């Protein structure tokens, strides 16, 4: 057992850092540190650069075009990119549907879809939740009826992140209504340009547009877009969710968040000094700092088990729960550090590149919107309540 890095790993970290500095646009980087929203190009230009280097699908095995990194390399890659201010890699292609396709798909499907995911030339979105199927995902009603060599799909998906940017959507659809809910579900890939697909924005509490409703009205989908066997999509669904829960803790971003928070505390005036001289406040930063460390080490222990051939178990749910609470707390403390100047609402500073000067300090405009927005982290990807049910049932046997 050893926490120290070997020389080859240090060299690897340097290589990643050099790549980030060369390929990450200063404007995108600035948005990360100031907490502004990225536009489509911020994500795509960066992801395509990673794709060209062969690093976008960094968790994939070599066989499917991944770099075949060990756990330490993945850890370093994620952390260095976060430190350098890279946007998170949108998970829908490389972390969600990609692994489903190379695990459950046919050779034709692998050849057809994996290259576009690895290069980020094709962007994906996730068609899981529905108005009546949130926490109770298996209750989904979107219906796919086989007609010759096509499915005709009807229904509605919701909370679909970046559907307005997506070329393709992977959907859970109901193909059999006669059996137990989980047994009649299939995993279907749908081209967003197919007639009958409509995207409607959902505006979030901070005014942002990230998520959407996706309406599917007699959408004709070729049978060859089915991944795995008909009615066995729940297996793909669960496989994907377990992967999702692992990365969703966002530890590297939280580490960056703590360091940004300390910088803000050093710059925020209070009683002729700064907030950094207020032990009541800095102790709260120390507290969240330690929580991040505990989470990181727990995540590393899971990754280490996986490296020895183990699969992520239901205990990853605890990482997701703590990861979301920590992200929320960092956002909360950041807003509190800004204080009264968190009150002005400046959408121009959040969503557009404007020349307008911020009201208050540079870090003020995103502080409160980010706090509001981060409430979603304990809701999406399986709410905290659902994750705790999983742990109590699957880990503790209650």
């Amino acid at each position, binding site marked *: 057992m050893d926490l120290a890095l070997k020389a080859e790993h240090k060299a690897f970290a340097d290589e990643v850092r050099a790549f980030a500095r060369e390929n990450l646009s200063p404007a995108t980087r600035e948005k990360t540190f100031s907490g502004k929203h990225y536009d489509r190009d911020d994500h795509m230009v960066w992801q395509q650069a990673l794709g060209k280097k062969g690093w976008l699908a960094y968790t994939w095995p070599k066989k499917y075009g991944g770099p075949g990194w060990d756990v330490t390399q993945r850890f370093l890659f994620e952390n260095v990119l976060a430190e350098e201010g890279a946007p998170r890699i949108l998970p829908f292609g490389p972390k969600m549907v990609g692994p489903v396709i190379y695990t459950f798909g046919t050779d034709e499907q692998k050849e057809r879809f994996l290259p576009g995911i690895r290069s980020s030339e094709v962007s994906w979105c996730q068609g899981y939740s529905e108005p009546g199927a949130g926490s109770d995902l298996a209750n989904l009603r979107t219906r796919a009826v086989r007609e010759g060599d096509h499915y005709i799909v009807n229904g509605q998906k919701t909370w679909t992140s970046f559907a307005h940017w997506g070329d393709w959507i992977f959907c859970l659809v109901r193909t059999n209504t006669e059996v137990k809910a989980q047994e009649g579900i299939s995993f279907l890939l749908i081209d967003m340009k197919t007639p009958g697909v409509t995207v409607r924005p959902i505006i979030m509490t901070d005014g942002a547009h990230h998520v959407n409703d996706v309406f599917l009205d007699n959408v004709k989908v070729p049978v060859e877009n089915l991944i795995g066997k008909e009615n066995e999509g729940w297996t793909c669904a669960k496989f994907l969710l377990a992967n999702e829960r692992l990365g969703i803790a966002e530890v590297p971003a939280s580490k960056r968040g703590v360091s940004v928070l300390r910088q803000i505390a050093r710059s925020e005036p209070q009683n002729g000094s700064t907030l950094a001289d207020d032990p009541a406040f800095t102790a709260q930063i120390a507290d969240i700092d330690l929580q991040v460390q505990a989470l990181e080490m727990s995540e590393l222990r899971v990754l280490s088990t996986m490296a020895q051939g183990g699969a992520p178990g239901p205990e990853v749910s605890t990482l997701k729960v703590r990861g979301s609470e920590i992200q929320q707390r960092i956002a909360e403390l950041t807003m*509190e550090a800004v204080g009264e100047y968190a009150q002005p*609402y400046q959408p121009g500073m959040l969503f557009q590149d404007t020349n307008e000067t911020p009201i*208050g300090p540079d870090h003020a405009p995103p502080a409160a919107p980010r706090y509001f927005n981060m409430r979603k982290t304990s809701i999406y990807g399986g709410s905290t309540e659902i994750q*705790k049910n999983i742990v109590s049932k699957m880990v503790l046997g209650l």
Partner: protein
Amino acid sequence: MDLSLSDEQKQLKDAAERFVRDKYTFENRRKIAATERGWLPENWSQFAELGWLGMSFSEEDGGYGGGPIETMIVMEEFGKGLVLEPFLPTVVLGGGMIASAGTKAQKEALLAPMIEGKKQFAFAWLERQSRYNLADVSLKATKEGAGWSLSGHKGVVYNAPSADHIIVLARTAGSAREPKGLTLFIVDAKAKGISRRDYPTQDALRASELTFDKVSVGADAVLGKVDEAFPVVEGAVDRAIVALCAEATGCMDAINAATLEYIKTRKQFGVPIGKFQVLQHRMVDCFTNAQEARSMTLMASLKIDDKDATVRAKAASGAKVQIGKSGKFCGQSAVQMHGGMGVTDELSVSHYFKRLTMIDLMFGNQQHHLTRYSNLAMAA
């Protein structure tokens, strides 16, 4: 001891409830927030007609002889509707300071028309470096002939875009952060040398950054005594804090009611999600939090006119701590129990959550008031 409302107070509560029900449906509020002014003059006129603008002032000052309990009643209902009219800056802060420190002439010229709905105020105290320290003031007022000249910056001045007069806290003597040497000035909002940058706040109110560049005012612009404004400001802010606590209590009632309704109707796994014990207990905690918030607000409202400034300060800070804690718990819980719907702009919950969050940041957050209370309590 009697904690029940008088018949008149009950009528006031009914009237405020009716106003919110009729004029502040969620959709209506959205429309009002989208207007340029951000509030409706017809509602303001109605406040004047109903006597709400004068209810908490003495008859001597042209009011109707009520006090903090009347303010609490109305603010609580305003909280339920997320009312946008600038009652707090105009009546509680502006009116409050003029009533407590103004001359007879100032009261006649300003308070009387305010009570009639014809004048509005904004209170400019905060500066970039102030955080929650009311004495951290560097905007300078220097003697200029018989009058004064004001230069400096003020931030997050609520209602500045609509105000007829701005009440400005300025340094006339003393060093930075010294409570002594502060003076209040009543300045015409259109005075030469004032420039404004207006903006909406997170919770759809209106505020401004103000720059004062050699703004000349007469000697009669001084509100209260020169160099002695701090106790007036502290008292007015403590009153405003208690009023905000009442508003927050109303917000909590409304957000809890919306959440309760949601978990009774939203079905997952074949049953309303309110059947799950983990949500039942959380809902109970929300209810308990709102009760504690109401209790502390009532206690503060009953103590805020105490002769002893320490009693007043402790009451205001104590209530603000409770409101910060309870508001955060109810707000975050409501969002969580609403699931994805809770983080959208579409439902009212996110709007109550935003207001509760901003109330915590106004005039000192939970931590600030815990420290202030602690210092006062240890000194006793």
